[in-house]
């Protein structure tokens, strides 16, 4: 059993296709693992004993619209039996609509909601033979960097249960790192795939904006939201990206990637140029994280890669621009939660507006209210140009910085997060301190370019006693828009040289280290 769970998705799919591993046995092993979730990482799991073809609700009553035609095409009663992901169960962040399966986006306002249709990204996975293993916990509406903003309680980091897994895709990162899923789907608006991947010691890929359809992905900030895989290795990220990418008639902003994504095979970095932003020198960064970053740079050179200095002079304003643009778009997107068509309603006896106000007051958590307020303020009369207009111009400048850098280098590299996983409750009192976790990931989101975080080493938390166990440190590689294949090749080569799994050894939670 343990052997089955040690396989990567690519390995398992190949063995299932070759008849060496039974899809039923593999699926059952993962369902049993998921049912043992002790990290509060799942909000829903496929029940044990669910029929293999019953992907909709695992033994629950028939979902609304099952098998019916919808404006989005037919809702299949069953997924494909075979395909590139044949028989592989995948954990899905609870921000993706899944027909008949509870979908909350981590919010109380959607408690009990069962969507009548399934997100395109999830449909593509199941059409390739994958199964929905469970829905993962997350910061409410993807707003957060620690998973402490979930209405359903925080997720624990499998490396250290008193620490956060990062966010907002904290549940997705925790299930992969904790050996509760072979791979997971997440979303990234300002770092919500990459930062939790970094804090949990796994791979997280945010593709180019538009690479994968956003249809059925509950909207936070529409000009920034992009979904992507959280996996144990780079090859699995490539496999899932290849299945999910593509233009979707149901998402007019989807573009897709031109041509299929191949599994990466590259083993050296010769001829590739990596740009290190000179601003990192002064950036607020834990000493342990900086040491791992510098060691990784040295490893790139050993692999034949060339290191060059680049300048991203406007990146330091990324957080400011992001925390205007994202809340502004969120305040508009979240207007739909009004207690009328779906979700919770708090009875307002007097009149309609009171019902809206009560429903939203009780349905939204503190961070969501804060961002809705911030966004509404930034868009309100008299402040629009000063905040939203100015932030959009900063966004242009940041994208221009990357354009200039990519004229000189193939990739831009940074630490993914300024620190290792921090303690539960450590940053909840200061929203701004929490926002600064996104310092290194937000610029790529604003520019719409792809970026991957790979685990690069371990570092003790800042201020920890000597000999304290190390926690994972992520290394971020960003590429020009639609440069995913080249990005994955470079990340794969570096991953092989870093051999994080060997460095982590028995401490890796998926090996049972932290679980023992």
């Amino acid at each position: 059993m343990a052997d089955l769970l040690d396989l990567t998705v690519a390995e398992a799919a190949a063995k299932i296709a070759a008849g060496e591993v039974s899809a039923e046995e593999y699926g059952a092993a993962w369902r049993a693992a998921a049912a043992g979730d002790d990290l509060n990482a799942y909000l829903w799991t496929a029940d044990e004993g669910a029929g293999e073809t019953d992907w909709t609700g695992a033994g629950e009553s028939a979902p609304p619209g099952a098998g019916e035609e919808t404006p989005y095409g037919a809702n299949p009663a069953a997924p494909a039996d075979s395909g590139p992901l044949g028989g592989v169960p995948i954990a899905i962040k609870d921000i993706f609509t899944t027909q008949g399966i509870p979908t909350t986006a981590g919010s109380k306002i959607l408690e009990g909601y069962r969507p009548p249709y399934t997100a395109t990204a999830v449909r593509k996975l199941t059409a390739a033979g994958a199964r929905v293993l469970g829905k993962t916990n997350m910061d409410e509406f993807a707003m957060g960097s620690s998973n402490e903003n979930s209405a359903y309680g925080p997720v624990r980091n499998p490396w250290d249960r008193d620490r956060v897994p990062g966010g907002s895709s904290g549940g997705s990162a925790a299930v992969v790192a904790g050996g509760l899923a072979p791979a997971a789907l997440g979303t990234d608006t300002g770092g919500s795939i990459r930062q939790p991947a970094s804090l949990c010691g796994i791979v997280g890929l945010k593709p180019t904006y538009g690479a994968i359809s956003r249809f059925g992905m509950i909207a936070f900030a529409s000009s920034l939201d992009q979904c992507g895989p959280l996996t144990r290795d780079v090859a699995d990220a490539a496999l899932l990206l290849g299945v999910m990418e593509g233009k979707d008639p149901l998402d007019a902003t989807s573009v897709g990637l031109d041509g299929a994504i191949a599994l990466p095979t590259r083993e050296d970095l010769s001829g590739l140029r990596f740009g290190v932003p000179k601003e990192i020198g002064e950036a607020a960064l834990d000493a342990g994280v900086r040491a791992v970053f510098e060691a990784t740079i040295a490893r790139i050179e050993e692999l034949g890669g060339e290191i060059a200095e680049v300048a991203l002079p406007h990146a330091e304003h990324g957080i400011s621009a992001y925390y205007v643009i994202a809340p502004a778009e969120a305040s508009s997107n979240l207007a739909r939660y009004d207690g009328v068509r779906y979700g919770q309603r708090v009875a307002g006896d007097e009149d309609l507006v009171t019902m809206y106000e009560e429903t939203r007051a009780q349905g939204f958590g503190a961070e969501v209210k804060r961002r809705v307020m911030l966004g509404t303020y930034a868009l309100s009369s008299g402040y629009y140009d000063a905040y939203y207009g100015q932030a959009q111009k900063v966004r242009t400048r940041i994208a221009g910085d990357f354009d200039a850098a990519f004229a000189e280098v193939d990739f831009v590299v940074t630490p993914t997060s300024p620190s290792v996983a921090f303690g539960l409750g450590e940053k909840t009192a200061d929203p701004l301190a929490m926002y600064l976790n996104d310092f290194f990931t937000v610029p790529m989101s604003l520019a719409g370019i792809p970026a991957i975080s790979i685990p690069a080493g371990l570092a003790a938390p800042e201020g920890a006693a000597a000999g304290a166990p190390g926690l994972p440190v992520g290394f971020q590689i960003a590429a020009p828009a639609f440069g995913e294949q080249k990005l994955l090749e470079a990340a794969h080569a570096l991953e092989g040289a870093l051999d994080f799994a060997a460095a982590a050894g028995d401490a890796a939670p998926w090996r049972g280290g932290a679980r023992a």
Partner: protein
Amino acid sequence: MIDRDQVLHVAKLARLRLDDAEVETMAGELSGILEHVDRISDLDLEGVEATSHVVQLENVFRADVPWTSLPPKVALASAPEPFDGAFRVPSPQAPVD
């Protein structure tokens, strides 16, 4: 920077009811965040194009053909108060202010 009255005004625009304690907290927190955000107001960005979207969007046309709609019972299945094929809400007639 943001006072109590502004918080209440914005809360009304956002259709959020905040209790007294929330108003106080919100005023402090929003002020702190806006102080950080305000750093961009000093940048000289005169004449810089605003980026609203990173994808070069083109108008998309499709054939204007009838398509199956979400069946009414499905569309209403998640509603807090479905009523006779519709969404029932409290009367909007009561005074707003």
